[in-house]
């Protein structure tokens, strides 16, 4: 596991999980810090609005931590957690019985970019535009692209989170990327 939010982890994942099961505050804090951005992004991908995404990320992470005893380790903790967050976000969408919020163009303002190999190669405005276009993809394609690109999940893991086979996750990803490229040419 490569930590994405808090730099190199001081403890292994199994140590953190073991500590979290015992209620160790440091382990709980580190687990939350490691996975909060991934959880937020997945929730945002489903719900579209930041306020709802924060709530769903919080509820999903808390639900996962509360149910750690049920984590068998068949998948990585992150994949398991993100599947729970995705379920939480979908439930919220159903509960509130409303459509996914359409992201505003300034939700992906170039000022908030986090850097990467494309920096300096692609114009910043274009970078922001790609993200805005991602939000317009159908949910499974959007999540497949997000989980593969943002989180670095394998297609099998992507399938675990979006509730599909590995093959279907791969197809959703490639369709999503193809459509994004077509839109960018328009």
């Amino acid at each position, binding site marked *: 596991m490569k930590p994405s939010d808090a730099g190199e982890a001081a403890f292994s994942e199994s140590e953190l999980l073991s500590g979290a099961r015992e209620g160790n505050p440091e382990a709980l804090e580190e687990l939350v810090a490691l996975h909060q951005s991934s959880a937020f992004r997945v929730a945002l991908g489903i719900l579209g609005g930041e306020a709802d995404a924060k709530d769903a990320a919080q509820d999903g992470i808390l639900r996962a931590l509360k149910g750690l005893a049920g984590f068998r380790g068949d998948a990585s903790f992150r994949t398991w957690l993100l599947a729970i967050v995705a379920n939480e976000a979908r439930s919220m969408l159903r509960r509130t019985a409303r459509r996914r919020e359409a992201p505003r163009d300034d939700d992906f303002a170039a000022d908030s970019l986090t850097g990467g190999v494309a920096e300096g190669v692609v114009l910043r405005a274009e970078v922001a535009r790609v993200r805005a276009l991602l939000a317009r993809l159908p949910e499974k394609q959007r999540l497949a692209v*997000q989980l593969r690109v943002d989180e670095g999940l394998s297609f099998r893991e992507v399938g675990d989170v979006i509730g599909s086979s590995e093959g279907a996750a791969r197809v959703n990803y490639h369709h999503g990327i193809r459509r994004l490229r077509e839109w960018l040419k328009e």
Partner: protein
Amino acid sequence: MTCEELADRLPDWAAGRLGDAESALVAAHVAVCDDCSAQGSVLGALFAARPEAPVGLAERIARVACAQAHAVPEAGTNRSWRRPAWVLSAAAVLVLAVGTTVLLRAPQMIEVVSVLGEVPLEESQVWIADDGAVAGAPVLDDLSDEALATLLEELGE
């Protein structure tokens, strides 16, 4: 390396997740393949623009997680920015149970049986309106955490 072989690795290359050797292999292909180069640019742009969690989210979640793990809330802290639904439900059931029992019985000592267990209450502890009817359930949504805790404490004593 063919375009097909590269396609699955391109996101990891664009996000800088590959080791040096593999990254160099991908870069060598991308340098001579317009299609993979264009796709790599799109993937790089997506990764560069990925949103981060809002400031303060981790602290809020960790605080609630620690409180849940130890079931000892920190004094003076807001344990959750949203009151869990079960608290409202439990409070509503309790208030309803108290109200129903008072309507049906009028003893000096009232025993309320609710989902939370048997709760003996003195009549003076039950909210009764001036006309003798049991007051309606308070609007719990507007109660602060402290007020809700006080209400539950009073009903539980």
